[in-house]
Every structure is written in C-alpha cells, then in structure tokens.
C-alpha cells in the first residue's frame, strides 16, 4: 500500500499534473465541442491521441477546414519533441522489458516526463508500476476533463483563465527542476537561453521547429558550459 515504488505512489506523484490537466483539459473539451466534435469523438481524441497541444492544433485546423493530410503532418511536427523526452527517460528505464517501455512511452507527455525525470534523478530506480501510476492518473484526468469541458461548453464563456494552468504548471516544473539540479548555474543558463532562442526562432518562423531548435541549443549549451567549467583553470 505504501510501497514508494508502487502504482499508488506514482499516481500520488501525479497529483499536480492531474490538477493542471483538469484546467487545460476542460479548455480543450470546450474548444473541441465548439469545433463540432461529438462526445464520442472528444473521448476518442483525448484518450487515443492524448496530446494537449496536438488536440488544439487538430481542432483549430478542423474549424479552418484544412485537408486531413496537412493536419496529420502538423501534429507530427508538433509532437516530434517527444523524441528527446523519450530518449532522456530511456537510461532510467533500462531494466524494463521492451513491451513495458512501449506502453509507458505511449502515455508520455511534457508534464509526466518532468515529474518522472525529477523522481529518477533524485533516487533511482523507480519501476514500471510507479511510472504506470503516474501515467494513468494523468491520462484519466485528461480524458475526464475533456469530457467535462465538452459537456459544459455552452456555459463556458472564456477558456483562457483555465488554460493558464498550463504556463503555471511549466513555471512550477522549471523551479522544481532548477532546485534539484546539481549544477544550478548551468541549469539556469540553459533555461534562459532556451527561452530566448525559442522566442527568436518562433518570431523568425512560427511552428514546432522553434521548440525543437531551442531544446537542442539549450541542452548543447548546458553540456558545453559544464565541460568548459570543469577544465582546470591552468589549462584554459
């Protein structure tokens, strides 16, 4: 029951993500219903696609009557950043079987990734059950919030306030990551640089490449700074 590696412990670790997803998922459900999706379609998109930013992309492109192939291609690029997240989790989940890794990867999101990597860097290892608990609590909350938003979309005047749970969750996750990082100065530099590069790239060419480019730049800067700082002063 109180197994720190168990399913229940993983689900508890996901409480903050659940809370954030209730707000954002509600907003997503409102928009999906307004774009003409049925309840069954809202349930399907939130459980099977299960990707907040991609669902907003699908709904807005559907309302613009975009060709389906263009929607799929955009979703692919928006979600390509998961390559990096999935690769970053891989060293921590090496003890698992391939099918376990595949199932856990299917439910990977930005938020569960950060909670999991904070947990893994604090005291490895956590097992498949812990990760499944985290994933399932977030996934269930997301689907429930989407449906609630769809059901109440007629009454919701403004989804912006609830949607603001997302940037707040990002801010909280950044602070927790920085506080736990063994190299605070380097980590802070990575954060600020990635933010600046993302804004610059997005202004130059809006789209998912700004996120991917900023992430590649930030991580490379972090590695470079750390290597440079650990060179003995005499040989600089």
């Amino acid at each position, binding site marked *: 029951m109180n197994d720190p590696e168990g399913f229940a412990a993983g689900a508890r670790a996901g*409480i*903050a*993500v659940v*809370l954030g997803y209730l707000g954002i998922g509600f907003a997503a459900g409102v928009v999906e219903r307004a774009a003409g999706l*049925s309840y*069954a*379609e809202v349930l*399907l998109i939130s459980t*099977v*696609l299960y*990707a907040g930013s*991609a669902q907003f992309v*699908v709904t807005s492109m559907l309302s613009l009557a975009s060709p*389906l192939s263009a*929607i*799929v291609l955009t*979703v692919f690029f928006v*979600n390509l950043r998961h*390559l*990096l*997240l999935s*690769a*970053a*989790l*891989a*060293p921590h989940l090496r003890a698992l079987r*391939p099918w376990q890794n595949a199932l*856990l*990867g*299917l439910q*990977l999101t*930005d938020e569960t990734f*950060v909670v999991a*990597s904070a947990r893994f*860097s604090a005291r490895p290892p956590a097992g498949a059950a812990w990760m499944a608990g985290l994933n399932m609590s977030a996934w269930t909350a997301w689907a429930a919030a989407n449906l609630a938003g769809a059901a109440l979309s007629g009454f919701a005047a403004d989804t912006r306030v609830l949607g*603001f*749970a997302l*940037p*707040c*969750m990002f*801010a*909280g996750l950044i*602070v*927790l*990551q920085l506080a736990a990082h063994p190299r605070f100065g380097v*980590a802070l530099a*990575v*954060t600020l640089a*990635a*933010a600046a590069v*993302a*804004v610059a790239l997005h202004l130059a060419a809006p789209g998912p490449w*700004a*996120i991917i480019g*900023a*992430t590649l730049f*930030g*991580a490379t800067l*972090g*590695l470079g700074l750390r290597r440079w700082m650990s060179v003995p002063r005499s040989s600089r």
Partner: protein
Amino acid sequence: MDVRPEILALILACALVTALPRVLPLVALSRFELPSWLREWLGYVPLAVLAALLAIEVLLPGGEPGFSLANPALPALAAAFAIAVWSRSLIGTVIAGVAAYWLLA
C-alpha cells in the same frame, strides 16, 4: 454521439505519428548503455523544453509579441514563479497563478 469515419481516420493517423516519437527512443535506447556525455546532454532537455514552451506560450500569445504589462499573463506568471520558489509546491503554484490571472484579466 457518432464517430464520423473521416474523424476516426484523422484521430488514428494523428495518434500513430504521435506514438512513434514517444515510443521508439524509449524502446531502442534503453537496450544499451548511453555514453556519459549523451546522458548529461539529455539531462538538460527537460529544462530546455519547458523554457521554450513557456516562453512562446506567454511572450508570444497568438504568435504576436506580448511584451507589455497589458498582457496579464506576465504579472500572473511572475506571481506563479514567486509562489513556486517560496513553496516548492506544484499544486500551490498552479492555483496561485490561475487565481492571479483571473484577478488581472
């Protein structure tokens, strides 16, 4: 309550192209030991991705520059950061930030 066939096909296709980058690295890279520099590089990925997502979301709402105090997201986010540093609580940060945004907007 129906699922239209073209919507079903759209959702399944989107789910497939989303699942591949989520699953493939986890399955393939967890088979062998990564070099230490790559593990360290990957250790900076969470912060970089969060900072990029947050900066675009808040500084460029709708793709347009929003660097002004008329953008209620900026003071609300500053409040969220302050609460996060002070409390180290994710839940508290989300509640405080949304409340601040609601008051300001």
